[in-house]
């Protein structure tokens, strides 16, 4: 028999095809299988042999679906289904997960039935792949295709019945056995990146390409970064360790992935930059959230340059080293909740190339301020240089002027943050001029020597702004970053050792 599966252009199904190909290939069984840019072909005269291969890969990779948990009291080892795996589960028997899906509970029998069905030709059209088939093995369900759930009002074609009222033909049945098998086995894919927040949600990342060859190569490259036996996260802290990262959210997870990929992997040409991000909620109703994230070449370039030339990892050496310190006369404890939020938002702003939002995250807030060590500050300056200044063509001297004014803003904001907030909120260059004028007035009130500020930097900044009017927002954002930075340094407890 010959099975041909063309590319679906569907994020779940294409990853599933790649996964099936890899599982069969890794099993090192003798079989004629080929994946080119747009199609998977399996060719065999030995249907029983193929059934054997399929059922053994299902058995051998079952560990991808579960984690093992040792009971602290009894020492007993129990299996737990990973939180995001959308396969129904029955009551555990002797601590072993019982999947309510025949292909996982009785792989031999089930794959044999599926292959029999695949072999037959029929008239029905599959709602997922559009090919014709004989009979479904199972209805279209979330386990084989996470984007569906049983909601009648969205899953059918309305039509007349007896010319009187609407009847409703659902199409869950129009699901071919090939799509079922491919889709349900995607849970065995050990290259799905995941991060679970207990009691809340799991986030899954699937790479997207318009051809199978690049998808295969990319997933193969990054595979070693992941450890599938951890429950809540599978990005390894270090390549040769089992420990995984506890990133605070989805963007930080992806950022963390990239810095490891760029630093630890000898990648060839293929670097994926398009991702599907799926959120699977806890609880019984599994309505999922979905978004595509397409990273730009320029952001990838910034990450590469920081790692290549400076060995700075944006997440580990910068964002993960950023804290929110609470103003507290008895020391400076960290607000961990807010710190995690800020770290996640910084990761997001960077990945989507939004410097404005990045700079705002660094502003002091009610009750405290963002702080970091001097080493982290140097990393932040390197990031800003590569991410913003190099591109804008702003010279190092001009940066000196921005920093100088940042220092002034920090000093005059010491007891009153309104100027800093006003600066951040400027919506037009006229607003910006008026804030600069206010800064100039405030200068009169401070002891220049004691405060260690350089008043001429304000003249320079005004000149810089005149010469680069079109880029005024960028200059404003840079000024916000540096003002916040100097504010943090200048305040007690702001500098972390």
């Amino acid at each position, binding site marked *: 028999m010959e099975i041909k599966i063309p590319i679906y252009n569907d994020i779940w199904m294409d990853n599933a095809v790649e996964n099936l190909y890899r599982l069969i290939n890794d099993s090192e069984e003798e079989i004629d299988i080929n994946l080119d840019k747009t199609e998977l072909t399996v060719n065999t005269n030995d249907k029983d042999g193929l059934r054997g291969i399929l059922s053994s890969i299902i058995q051998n990779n079952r560990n991808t679906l579960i984690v093992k948990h040792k009971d602290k009291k009894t020492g007993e080892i129990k299996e737990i289904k990973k939180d995001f795996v959308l396969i129904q589960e029955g009551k555990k028997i002797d601590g072993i997960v019982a999947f309510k899906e025949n292909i996982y509970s009785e792989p031999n029998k089930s794959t044999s039935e599926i292959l029999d069905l695949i072999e037959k030709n029929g008239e029905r059209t599959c709602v997922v792949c559009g090919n014709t088939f004989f009979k479904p093995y199972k209805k279209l369900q*979330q386990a084989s295709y996470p984007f569906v759930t049983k*909601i009648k009002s*969205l899953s059918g074609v309305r039509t*007349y*019945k007896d010319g009187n009222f609407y*009847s409703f033909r659902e199409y869950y049945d*129009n699901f071919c056995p090939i799509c079922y098998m491919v889709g349900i086995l995607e849970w065995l894919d050990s290259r799905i990146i995941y991060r679970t927040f207990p009691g809340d949600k799991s986030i899954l990342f699937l790479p997207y390409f*318009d051809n199978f060859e690049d998808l295969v190569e990319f997933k193969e490259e990054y595979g070693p970064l992941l450890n599938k036996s951890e429950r809540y996260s599978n990005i390894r802290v270090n390549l040769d360790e089992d420990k995984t990262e506890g990133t605070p959210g989805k963007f930080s997870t992806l950022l963390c992935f990239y810095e490891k990929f760029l630093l630890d992997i000898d990648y060839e040409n293929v670097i994926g930059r398009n991702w599907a991000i799926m959120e699977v909620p806890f609880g019984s109703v599994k*309505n999922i959230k979905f978004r595509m994230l397409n990273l730009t070449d320029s952001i990838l370039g910034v990450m590469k340059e920081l790692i290549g030339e400076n060995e700075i990892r944006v997440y580990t050496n910068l964002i993960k080293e950023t804290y929110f310190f609470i103003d507290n006369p008895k020391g400076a404890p960290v607000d961990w909740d807010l710190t995690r939020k800020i770290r996640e938002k910084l990761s997001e702003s960077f990945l989507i190339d939004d410097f404005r939002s990045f700079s705002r995250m660094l502003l002091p807030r009610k009750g405290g301020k963002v702080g970091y060590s001097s080493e982290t500050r140097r990393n932040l300056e390197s990031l800003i240089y590569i991410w913003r200044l190099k591109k804008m063509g702003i010279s190092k001297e001009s940066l000196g002027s921005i920093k100088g004014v940042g220092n002034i803003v920090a000093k005059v904001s010491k007891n009153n943050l309104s100027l800093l907030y006003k600066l951040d909120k400027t919506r037009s260059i006229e607003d910006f001029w008026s804030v600069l004028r206010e800064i100039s007035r405030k200068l009169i009130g401070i002891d220049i020597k004691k405060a260690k500020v350089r008043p001429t930097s304000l003249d320079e900044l005004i000149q810089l702004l005149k010469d680069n009017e079109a880029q005024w927002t960028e200059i404003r954002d840079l000024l916000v970053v540096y003002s916040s930075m100097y504010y943090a340094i200048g305040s007690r407890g702001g500098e972390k050792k």
Partner: protein
Amino acid sequence: MFGFKFRIEVLYFTTFRKSTSTSLISSYTIPPFTTIRGVISNALGLRRDDLRVQEWIKIGIKPQNCINRSTEMAKVLKLKGTGKKYQKTFSSSPMFKEFLVNPVYDIYVAGDQEKIQNIYHALKNPKRPLYIGGSDELVDINTFEPVEIGKATSKETFCVMDGIHENCIIEKIPYKFIQAGRNFSLEYRTVSIPKDENFNGEAEIFNFNGENIFLF
């Protein structure tokens, strides 16, 4: 062959739901061919399940603006009852929903002269109010005069193309309904939606008053 173009502007927001997305609602980037035929059938005043327009025309699509997407949490009502009796309350489920912001498309239809004339007049004076995507998503339609169309001499174009091309959004779009008894199934086409570059391909292209268009 005759043909004409009409411009569909969705007044605010719309969603072209992928039929296999029901645990969330995701949208295609362009209106599916089935949807466009639905608008035409609606303008002609055809009855439900009357699929004749499928046989009459070929369709080309050209997105006119950059398609902006956003998302919301939508409360989706669940269907209850048999439809025989009036139903007062429905249970609901919150669901993640994608929508497109004020998209504009130029749609090209081609076929024999009589059919094209009929469709042209129907779109100018539709039998029923026209909407696209959701039934409360009204559209503004601008029709252009029918012209005779032929194969284009230049292969350069900027429109939705058949198959997979580089630098495009690739989607598998519902093309046709196939009715067998009371069951319907869908035929899909894989299409490439251009982002910013012209194609210069091998495909057969038609000339619509100077515009080169691929017809499905």
